């Protein structure tokens, strides 16, 4: 296939490469490179343009394009073949390289671009030729020749991150290519990734200009419109991913339904639907394209918070039911795909990519117990794979699942798969897999299985031939933490801890473990005798680990008296004296102190102790020498003065007060929350989460959504807003392209819940595309007044004259002023122009009103009304009342009455009082329950006077009056 051998092959270059390969010795190669450099320098006429060498004219200007291309390519080869060390030697060719870049011959231009792509990450290169390169890039980006534009875009895609000037000078040009509907698809794809590279370099270009940000992001999201153009999608998704994570996550939330649709089509539909041949770009080797799947899941992971998230991100509860169902189906299907048997390695890899990607994401969808069980089973079945990558990633995925999905997943593994994990630990040869198993066991340990888990880990440390120091030390720390945290039996705790310390092959030279054990023994009197007894069994063993000697030196020094029934002080002295010469200096220093403590208890040891210290006076180690000298002096002073100095100087250790386990700081990454110091064993507490869940968009917590009141609403929004407040159905909004109808329905027996159906009708002459909607509540955290749940989103495209439905529910938790109503953002494209609407949906307290009549009771009579009115007045006084007078636009009392009646109030039928309407109703909120409400409306000389009383007092009255005034005004 290497077709073109004449022009593109550059014979001189081939010869040069062959020469270098032919040179056996490094010096020969070096010489060949040097002579070539000299030649190229002459050809390029660096510094001396009139020389003529070897018959070649020495001026660069007389070089033709082919020659220039050949020499630049040679420089590029030298740069690569010397492992990039000769960068400074090839710098002289940069000018000629820029010259070549301006060539109109594709192959010449390509070599220039390729060479600059190689060198541009070097700051001195940008410095030297940056301006020329940018000027040429501008020309090429504007070129009519598609391949020249492509080269410029490739260059930016490669070097975008190297030079901030590139972003400032060229991002507009790149965006032009990206947004233009006439750009060839290959250029759209390249410009998307070039744009991404420039944005990564400096994203302030978007964040500093709110208008530009909104426009550009909308354009970029529009590129995903064609949900079957998978080829374009491959290049656009990474850009959307970056915007979602780094620039404006909130702006991307509305893509969730669309992305889910694409994912669903990719995973669930395409396979085996008979259409597989039709859209080859959505599959790879007959499996859903892993590139599309992982990117979409990655974006969804950024946009959707975990169920317990309190960062104000959207969680599964904010996603409409249809979308949620699709996503859950994708997870189920991915498990099917991932567990299908296959012999082909590549197919296996792709299946697993999809499986791991979706299982990692599944925890955000509030998975059912069944779903978790299926995930766990799928992953554990992969653990027996004979491929290391699969085992490694299956474990990684299990760890994430267990820490993010929490107890459900953990219990599932604990109940049926522990033996399998133990088995893998003991037979696995790859350290990276062992490391993951250890992490997983650590995550899974609780009071119920701590003994078996710790025993298995200790068995691994004893039996394994693995000598990865880091791993052993890591396991040791984990065992120490787990035993301390979950031990229910003190004897077991001491035995295991000492066994851990005794593993001489553990060779951890960290002191934290025995120090921690000593702290706990000091703080727990019941452990002291037990520890002494066990230490006395360990210490006489030959080659016992130094950690045991250290712990023994300290513990027996402190508590020798509780062990003295079994062994005399003299014997303890002899035991340490034996060990003394086989341990490190630090340990020897500890033993010297222990000997002093023994002497304090048994003065008859004095001569042996003195002999020992005298011996160490000659020690080469300064610490040991000093310590021996000082201890000798103390004994001498005691003899002279007769005062028991050792009693004062070696008082028993006081309990430790440090609350934090120092071992935890060694466990980077696995961040269990700080354990309490085990002042009293046993301590059993639930394990907290271990590794970090998949990254999610960071949202600054704000009191209320700034997006709710940031921009002006579309003109004429108020009419529809009012209409929806009064009527059950009608026209909500009309624009030149789009007409929106609404229908509202209270859910039976749950009047705090209102179901709203909006129907979007395309009234234009052209199809509407990329219709994306988003409902922005006033606030979503800190006790929000209402919660909006989307049941189904409108379809993204509406053909001319067609319609699509948008259904959502408003749950009123407590009353709130109408001003805090949610905003509906609608974005769409029609005939190439981008349009948007921003309207308000009423979330008023009167949404929840029910009249007595609806509940099959007769209406209120005037007498009843007056009686209740008085009763309320007596109970709450003026506090429960709200009163307002406005100029009434509604001309007649009838109109006001019909309006109030439509809102849902019960009108008292009466003819006794003129110009007055008496209305009653019940409003309901989730948090505060029912509130009876009575209202008096008086129309007089163009003024409307409203008085309202409610059983819940002034605030609710005020809200109701607000709604009524909004409706009738």
């Amino acid at each position, binding site marked *: *296939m290497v077709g073109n051998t004449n022009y593109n092959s550059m014979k001189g270059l081939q010869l040069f490469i062959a020469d270098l390969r032919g040179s056996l010795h490094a010096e020969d190669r070096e010489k060949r490179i040097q002579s070539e450099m000299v030649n190229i320098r002459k050809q390029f006429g660096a510094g001396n343009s009139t020389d003529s060498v070897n018959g070649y004219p020495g001026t660069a200007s007389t070089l033709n394009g082919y020659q220039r291309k050949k020499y630049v390519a040679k420089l590029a080869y030298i740069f690569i073949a010397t492992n990039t060390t000769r960068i400074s030697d090839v710098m002289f060719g940069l000018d000629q390289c820029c010259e070549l870049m301006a060539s109109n011959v594709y*192959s010449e231009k*390509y070599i220039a671009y390729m060479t600059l792509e*190689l060198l541009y990450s070097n700051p001195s290169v940008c410095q030297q030729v940056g301006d020329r390169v940018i000027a040429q890039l501008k020309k090429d980006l504007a070129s009519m020749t598609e391949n020249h534009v492509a080269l410029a875009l490739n260059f930016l*895609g490669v070097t*975008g991150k190297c030079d901030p000037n590139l972003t400032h000078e060229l991002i507009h040009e790149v965006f032009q290519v990206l947004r233009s509907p006439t750009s060839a698809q*290959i250029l759209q794809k390249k410009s998307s990734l070039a744009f991404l590279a420039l944005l*990564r370099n400096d994203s302030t270009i978007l964040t500093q200009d709110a208008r530009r940000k909104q426009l550009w992001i909308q354009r970029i999201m529009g590129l995903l419109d064609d949900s079957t153009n998978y*080829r374009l999608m491959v290049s656009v998704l990474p850009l959307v991913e970056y915007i979602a994570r780094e620039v404006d996550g909130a702006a991307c939330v509305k893509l969730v339904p669309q992305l889910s649709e694409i994912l669903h089509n990719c995973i669930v539909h395409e396979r085996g639907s008979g259409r597989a041949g039709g859209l080859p770009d959505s599959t790879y080797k007959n499996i859903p394209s892993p590139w599309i799947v992982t990117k979409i899941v990655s974006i969804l992971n950024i946009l959707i918070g975990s169920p317990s998230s309190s960062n104000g991100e959207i969680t599964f509860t904010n996603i409409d039911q249809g979308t949620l169902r699709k996503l859950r189906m994708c997870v189920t299907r991915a498990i099917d795909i991932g567990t299908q048997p296959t012999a082909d390695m590549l197919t296996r890899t792709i299946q697993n990519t999809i499986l791991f990607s979706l299982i*990692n994401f599944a925890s955000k969808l509030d998975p059912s117990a069944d779903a978790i069980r299926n995930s766990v089973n799928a992953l554990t079945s992969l653990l027996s794979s004979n491929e290391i990558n699969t085992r490694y990633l299956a474990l990684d995925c299990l760890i994430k699942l267990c820490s993010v999905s929490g107890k459900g997943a953990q219990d599932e593994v604990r109940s049926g798969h522990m033996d399998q994990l133990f088995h893998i630990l003991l037979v696995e040869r790859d350290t990276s897999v062992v490391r993951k198993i250890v992490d997983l066991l650590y995550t899974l340990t609780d009071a119920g299985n701590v003994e078996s888990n710790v025993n298995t880990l200790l068995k691994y440390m004893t039996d394994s031939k693995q000598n990865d120091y880091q791993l052993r030390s890591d396991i040791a720390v984990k065992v120490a933490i787990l035993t301390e945290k979950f031990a229910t039996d003190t004897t077991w705790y001491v035995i295991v801890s000492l066994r851990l310390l005794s593993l001489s092959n553990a060779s951890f030279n960290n002191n934290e473990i025995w120090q921690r054990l000593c702290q706990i023994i000091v703080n727990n009197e019941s452990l002291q005798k037990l520890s002494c007894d066990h230490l006395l069994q360990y210490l006489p063993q030959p080659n016992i680990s130094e950690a045991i000697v250290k712990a023994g030196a300290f513990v027996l020094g402190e508590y020798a008296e509780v062990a003295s029934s079994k062994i005399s002080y003299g014997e303890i002295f002899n035991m340490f004296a034996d060990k003394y010469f086989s341990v490190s200096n630090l340990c020897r220093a500890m033993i010297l102190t222990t000997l002093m403590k023994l002497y304090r208890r048994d003065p008859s040891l004095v001569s042996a102790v003195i002999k020992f210290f005298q011996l160490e006076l000659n020690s080469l180690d300064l610490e040991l020498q000093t310590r021996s000298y000082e201890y000798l002096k103390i004994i001498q002073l005691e003899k002279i003065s007769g005062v028991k100095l050792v009693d004062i100087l070696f008082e028993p250790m006081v309990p430790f007060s440090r609350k934090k386990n120092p071992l935890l700081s060694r466990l980077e990454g696995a961040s269990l929350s700080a354990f309490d110091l085990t002042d009293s064993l046993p301590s059993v507490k639930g394990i907290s989460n271990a590794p970090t869940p998949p990254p999610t968009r960071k949202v600054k917590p704000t009191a209320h959504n700034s997006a709710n009141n940031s921009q002006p609403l579309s003109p004429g929004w108020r009419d529809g807003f009012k209409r929806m407040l009064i009527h059950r159905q009608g026209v909500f909004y009309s624009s030149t392209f789009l007409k929106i109808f609404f229908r509202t329905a209270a859910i039976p027996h749950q009047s705090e819940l209102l179901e709203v159906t909006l129907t979007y009708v395309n009234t234009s002459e052209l199809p509407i595309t990329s219709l994306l909607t988003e409902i922005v509540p006033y606030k979503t955290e800190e006790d929000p007044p209402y919660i909006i749940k989307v049941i189904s989103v409108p379809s993204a495209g509406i053909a001319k004259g067609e319609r699509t439905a948008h259904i959502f529910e408003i749950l009123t938790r407590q009353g709130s002023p109408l001003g805090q109503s949610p905003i509906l953002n609608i974005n769409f494209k029609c005939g190439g122009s981008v349009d948007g609407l921003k309207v308000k949906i009423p979330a008023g307290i009167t949404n929840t009103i029910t009249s007595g009549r609806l509940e099959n009771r007769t209406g209120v009579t005037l007498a009843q009304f007056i009686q209740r009115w008085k009763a309320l007045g007596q109970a709450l006084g003026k506090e429960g009342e709200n009163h307002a007078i406005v100029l009434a636009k509604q001309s007649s009392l009838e109109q006001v009455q019909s309006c109030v009646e439509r809102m849902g109030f019960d009108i008292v039928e009466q003819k006794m009082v003129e110009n007055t309407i008496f209305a009653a109703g019940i409003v309901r909120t989730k948090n505060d329950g029912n509130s009876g409400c009575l209202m008096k409306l008086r129309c007089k000389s163009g003024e409307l006077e409203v008085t309202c009383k409610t059983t819940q007092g002034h605030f609710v009255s005020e809200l109701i009056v607000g709604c009524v005034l909004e409706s009738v005004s």
Partner: protein
Amino acid sequence: MAIKFVICLNKQGVLRLIRLFEPFPGDVSNNQSTIAQIYKLVSSREHKHQSNFVEFSDSTKLVYKRYAGLYFVLGIGLQDEELIYLSHIHLFVEVLDAFFGNVCELDIVFNFHKAYMILDELIIGGEIQETSKDVLLERISHLDRLN
């Protein structure tokens, strides 16, 4: 996030291709030793008993695969999911193989400029650009025929 670099080395640690989507950390004069460290790490791993993923620094992990005498190494962020990047490498090698016809190290040595051409059609901006082997081959042979 995304691919930080693509490197191709032979069994002796000689660089065959290098593509940096962001500069290596530290001074440029260190690039050579960074490459040497990558080679040391990757070549020291037993490919039968160890996975194709290894942490390289506190911000980068490597996904690599050996094909005959060549190591193909991608540097990615610690948060990135490793497995998909193995497919990137595989696709790159498949395309090289189809273009050169049973590719070997010498093809990449003598035609390094064509190997870069292929890479530029496959990955820019640290992200995959095209995943269809047929589309890639058609495009590359078109470019290769241009004067």
